[in-house]
């Protein structure tokens, strides 16, 4: 037969109606992956990219060289942050369904990726998030009311109504603005880290991207710049298996792990169980230590699962089995940390239920307050004239004029387009029609 090429189409192991099949996810036993010194050469680190760093075993015990040996109190804080993130997400989704806000994106099932990483970093480290790591905000102590006000585009919205829900920013908390365009933050974080190095600071940058958007050129810009300048940056790929309807094979994950792109660029790549709070904490801490010692960037692939829909505009039952998450071999990050604490004798079902109740009440109180500053359906509302602010630092004349036109229209005081008319009156009269 004459040889001929044939286009390969990646195909996920299961579609709606099929039995979930995660046999493609290569999992190392907990404690099995060695932990080299953070100063080790990239060559010595290469095997980390193909294995999976895990600390929490099936028996809920922490094992192996990556165990960060956190105090039980720290673990309890981590559990609290993850649970709060989940309850916040659930509430916001419900409020969107009630029509109180336009849109929402949950991080259900991926809470450890944000919370554990956030806790392993220092408050001065700068975070460049994607849109699904809201746990970072929780870790840094952001008030839920402020997050809710952003989602509501209300009178207390930090973005003054200019961004879609979840596109937060927080200067004081060292969290950069979230963009609706994918992957753009990845190379920006590298630039921030380059500046820290130029200025001789010990702060580092960390950034998150989905495995799907790692196909964007911006991912590759980030990798090249980070490695060329050995920038103090942690580059996190959150491999949650699904980019809306396309599975991770469509982003290049069919044959090789995303972590292996690290060594390909000359930096370490670590693949970690993203639902293992301790493992995520440990690899982040390792990468931060390396970056602070001028060891340069690390690429971390967090293997997790997007349990929720992509957004409130998405219906995943059209493209993946309904109960797929239940079959996910790495479990639920919250439940795993909870079981670990119970195994340690530092937690009980009763305390967990009480915590859940307390956080639920907190979310309710926050929502009540946030909604009092306005929702999509009820006032108060921001002044629309503010939309002309911040386009430039100082408002240029054409925007001053457009703002006045808007005010004239909304207040209908001088007749609409009155200034246009006024300006026209001062111009020469148009030439009369021919003929």
């Amino acid at each position, binding site marked *: 037969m004459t040889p001929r090429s044939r286009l390969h189409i990646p195909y996920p192991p299961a579609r709606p109606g099929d039995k979930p099949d995660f046999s493609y996810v290569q999992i190392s036993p907990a404690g099995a992956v060695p932990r080299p010194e953070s100063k080790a050469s990239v060559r010595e680190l290469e095997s980390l990219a193909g294995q999976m760093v895990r600390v929490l075993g099936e028996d809920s015990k922490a094992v192996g060289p990556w165990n960060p040996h956190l105090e039980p109190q720290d673990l309890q804080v981590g559990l609290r942050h993850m649970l709060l993130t989940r309850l916040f997400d659930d509430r916001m989704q419900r409020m969107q369904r009630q029509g109180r806000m336009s849109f929402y994106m949950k991080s259900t099932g991926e809470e450890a990726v944000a919370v554990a990483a956030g806790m392993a970093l220092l408050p001065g480290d700068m975070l460049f998030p994607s849109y699904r790591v809201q746990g970072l905000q929780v870790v840094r102590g952001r008030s839920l009311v402020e997050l809710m006000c952003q989602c509501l585009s209300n009178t207390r919205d930090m973005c003054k109504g200019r961004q879609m829900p979840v*596109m937060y920013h927080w200067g004081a908390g060292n969290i950069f603005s979230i963009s*609706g365009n994918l992957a753009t933050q990845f190379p920006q974080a590298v630039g921030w880290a380059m500046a820290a190095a130029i200025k001789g600071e010990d702060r580092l940058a960390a950034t998150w991207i989905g495995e799907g958007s790692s*196909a*964007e050129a911006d991912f590759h810009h980030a990798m090249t710049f980070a490695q060329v300048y050995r920038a103090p940056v942690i580059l996190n790929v959150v491999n949650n298996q699904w980019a809306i309807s396309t599975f991770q094979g469509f982003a290049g994950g069919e044959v090789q792990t995303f972590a292996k792109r690290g060594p390909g660029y000359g930096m370490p790549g670590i693949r970690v169980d993203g639902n293992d709070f301790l493992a995520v904490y440990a690899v982040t801490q390792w990468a931060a230590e390396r970056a602070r010692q001028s060891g340069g960037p690390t690429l971390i692939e967090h293997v997790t699962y997007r349990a929720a829909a992509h957004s409130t*505009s998405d219906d995943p039952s059209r493209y993946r089995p309904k109960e797929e998450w239940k079959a996910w071999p790495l479990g639920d990050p919250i439940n795993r940390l909870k079981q670990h604490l119970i195994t340690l004798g530092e937690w009980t079902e009763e305390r967990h239920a009480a915590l859940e109740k307390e956080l639920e009440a907190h979310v309710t109180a926050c929502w009540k307050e946030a909604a009092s500053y306005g929702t999509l359906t009820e006032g108060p509302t921001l002044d629309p004239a503010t*939309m002309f602010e911040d386009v430039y630092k100082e408002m240029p004349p054409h*925007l001053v004029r*457009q703002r006045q036109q808007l005010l004239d229209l909304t207040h209908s005081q001088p007749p609409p387009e009155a200034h246009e008319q006024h300006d026209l009156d001062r111009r020469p009269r*148009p030439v009369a029609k*021919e003929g």
Partner: protein
Amino acid sequence: MAHMNMVQALNSAMDIMLERDPRVVVFGEDVGYFGGVFRVTDGLQRKHGEHRVLDTPIAEGGIVAAAIGMGVNGLKPVAEIQFADYIYPAFDQVVSELARLRYRTAGEFSAPVTIRTPCGGGIRGGQTHSQSPEGIFTHVCGIKVVMPSTPYDAKGLLISSIEGDDPVVFFEPKRIYNGPFDGDPHKPAVPWSAHPGGAVPEGYYTVPIGRAEIVRPGSDVTVLAYGTMVHVAEAAVRLAGVDAEIVDVRTLAPLDVDTLCSSVNKTGRCVVVHEATRFSGYGAELVATVQEECFWHLEAPIQRVTGWDTPYPHAFEWEYFPGPARIAAALKTVMEAA
């Protein structure tokens, strides 16, 4: 004659072209198995196979670049960019490559690529799901730029775009995917089945690229509009109570100067409307053309009604949107000016 909404009409255009021409391939993010986030390619992969209707990685630059390569190798790619707001990573491939390939090779190479992309606001999409960047692309020589305002035109123009040998950026005003929208978000939605433009033949037909259409004849003033704003202009004309002639530009580049200017020469007045921002917007080209061609017939300075020169704000989309009240005010201004 069937009734279709714009999503169905676009789907039908691609279905027909996939059937008629084995060179046609359709691809983009979530376009294959899922059928697109706006369902425009729904069912096409099932029907035509996964080698002709493809999902792609999330990389707009890659999508357009691959489309160019496929086009050079004899295919007729129809690439979807999920939102026009996402097109910028592909900008270099569009501007430096797709648009100029024929020119720089003196006709030896070319890529007949159609880039479909939903544009425009009014869906609470904020600044990254609401943009109307057509003026950025009409400024580039070598690509055609199309924006339909009805399902009938959408299907006919998309077939023409796919059949043509030049690259086309095909903007789909997503606010009118499911029904004509007159600019009042508080009114109940009107389906396309209630609009003559929703009557769409099931089979093959074309609407020529480069031809505007008079959608409402009138004698007092000419309104030049395209996409969603054609419908908003109709509402504004009713509101203002003037006998306006509304011209749907339809093809932004190349421009049908004759139809536009014949109308303005007849009415002697002109209002240009678009949703995109004003400064250096496509309306400036329309105004300049009308001024050059119709100056001696004009009885009033031409007015522009556009989005404000700010990013599209999530909370204030209806204050931002150049709705019927603003258009009606401009109509009044041109009518009173002489």
